[in-house]
């Protein structure tokens, strides 16, 4: 209580009290600013380090070639991983987005006790370690059909699903009830109202959420180790075969002792960061346009 503001109201101690309180205030302000600056410095450190290392190995052939058979050789690229990421995340998106939006409609447009339970379960699902999600898909799919890109898609779909539901539900809640009432007053059914009135006016916001979920899935590695497995050397485009992704290739090449492999992994890391950042920033821009259009 030494710095209690009331203390300074007592006669005599006023000047010293105020001076000390000002110093404390100044000191705390500086401390908060320094911590903020350190946090931003760490962000800059990661981004600049990856860019610096990645640019050394990034070249047009990095995007169009597969790694050389001998990992000690320079050259080659992660074309198979990039294609694999696009296929696996693409399928995961196709699975998780319709289910996620439909579930969000149930939560917001219908509601009720069951919907509340699902809402809670969605929040819990967000926090499930993705390696466990991978183990789950291994248990129900890989044990029967083997490692495959498709299994990887299922795992990523499960990672994306709660993110899509949460983002979509949030956007649906922002749609003014007047729109629903106007539609109902015209004798339009609930389903038609949802499909033709509510969802279209939430599209931009939902797109933002989906893009962020895609960005998250692009960077996931752990669940893919247990499902897609990876195929570091060859281009694989058939989803029923084991398939590499950009993230798996970075992981595999980063932990080898070969300088050339690590160089390719840095270029991969830079590519991955660029993809994820572009998605994240684009999502922000769309999201911002939505919120400014609303206000």
């Amino acid at each position, binding site marked *: 209580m030494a710095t209690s*503001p009331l203390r300074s109201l007592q006669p005599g101690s006023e000047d010293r009290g105020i001076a000390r*309180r000002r110093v*404390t*205030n100044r000191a*705390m*302000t500086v401390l*908060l600013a320094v*911590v*903020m600056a350190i*946090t*931003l410095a*760490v*962000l800059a*450190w*990661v981004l600049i*380090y*990856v860019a610096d290392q990645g640019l050394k190995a990034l070249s047009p052939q990095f995007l169009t070639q597969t790694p050389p058979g001998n990992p000690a050789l320079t050259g080659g690229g992660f074309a198979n991983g990039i294609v694999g990421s696009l296929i696996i995340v693409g399928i995961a998106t196709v699975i998780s987005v319709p*289910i996620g939006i*439909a*579930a969000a409609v*149930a939560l917001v447009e*219908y509601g009720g006790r069951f919907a509340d*339970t699902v809402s*809670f*379960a969605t929040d*819990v*699902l967000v*926090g*499930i*370690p993705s*390696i*466990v999600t991978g*183990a*789950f898909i291994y*248990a*129900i799919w890989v*044990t029967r059909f083997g490692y495959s890109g498709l299994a990887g898609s299922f795992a990523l779909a*499960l990672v994306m*699903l709660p993110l899509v539901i949460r983002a979509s539900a949030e956007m649906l809640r922002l749609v003014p009830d007047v729109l629903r009432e106007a539609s109902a007053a015209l004798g339009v*059914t*609930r*389903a038609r109202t949802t*499909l033709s009135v509510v969802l279209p006016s939430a599209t931009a916001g939902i797109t933002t959420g989906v893009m962020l979920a895609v960005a998250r899935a692009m*960077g*996931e*590695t*752990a669940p893919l*180790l*247990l499902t897609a497995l990876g195929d570091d050397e060859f281009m694989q485009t058939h989803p029923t075969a084991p398939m590499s992704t950009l*993230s798996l290739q*970075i*992981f595999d090449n*980063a*932990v080898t002792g070969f300088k050339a492999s690590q160089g390719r992994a*840095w270029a991969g*890391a830079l590519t*991955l960061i660029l993809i*994820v*950042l572009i998605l*994240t920033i684009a999502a922000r821009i769309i999201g911002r346009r939505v919120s400014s259009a609303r206000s």
Partner: protein
Amino acid sequence: MSTPTTAPDAETLADRLRHRGANADAAFRVVVFGAAGLVLLALLGMVVFVLVQAWPAISHYGFFSFVSSDRWAPSDATPTATHPNPYGIVQFIYGTAITSLIGMVIAVPVSIAVALFITDVAIPWLRRPLSYLVDLLAAIPSVVYGFWGIFALIPALSPIVNHIASALAGVPGLNVVFGGPFFGVSYFTAGVVLAIMVLPIVTALCREVFATAPVDEKEAALALGMTRWEMLRTAVLPRSLSGIWGAAILGLGRALGETIAVTMVIGNSVLGINHSIFSEGATMASVIANEFTEATEPFHRSSLFVVAFWLLIIALIVNIAGKLVIRRIRGDLA
């Protein structure tokens, strides 16, 4: 919808359309609730199927033998011997706990400071860009943090850690917890990487909590002549305490399950608990990632599912606890 049906021949076009609409409406309802039900099914399925895969090892060695040993030696496993269990997992639970703890000890105070700076100290037009930048930390993929951790963070930490270890070498107790030698990959390195990775989520939640502090109370505090820090200390922080706890618990839930970055910087030493935070170790998630595809010994993969099962249970408990705390606060505010 529930209009009494008249004789079919009297049904007008409007009635028929209304009927069709009602059917479509019911079908739509079933579809969206079916999709919602998938979430529950997935959550339930996870617990069940992970347990099913873990069952061969559990029934062979006994449920509790896994959590009463810290010796993980798959090469000692045979198809018949049931005792001692070569798949003790206590060291992984310890590894998960200690790395998460180090991560939270660093991340929570930093997050509080960053959130306070963004909500109450920064110039208003800087607030949004600053929170975007902090959120960008969450966009960087785990595998990139791990890679960066090996080549950039470890060389930077080494001199600091060696300095601490040698300074504490003569202090009983502390020389065990902070003992050298430091080879770079360690519980501590993993904890620092985790701190960076959970910082954006804890900051975002703290920001949300701080932003709900009533403006009139803040203004009242300032009107009484308080400095800004006194205002934050009396009108913002006390009422935010439970919210900060909720944020910390959810951050912890994230840290517990983080896999790839930790696998890359922890050293993957599975043979027991190392008492120094500067020594190598393994976490529940890291051992699964590291050994799963090469699990060829008897009951090896099944035992990894035992690890996954415990990880799932711990993650469920932590996340549900965090959600309940956050939800109660939001309820109080509403």
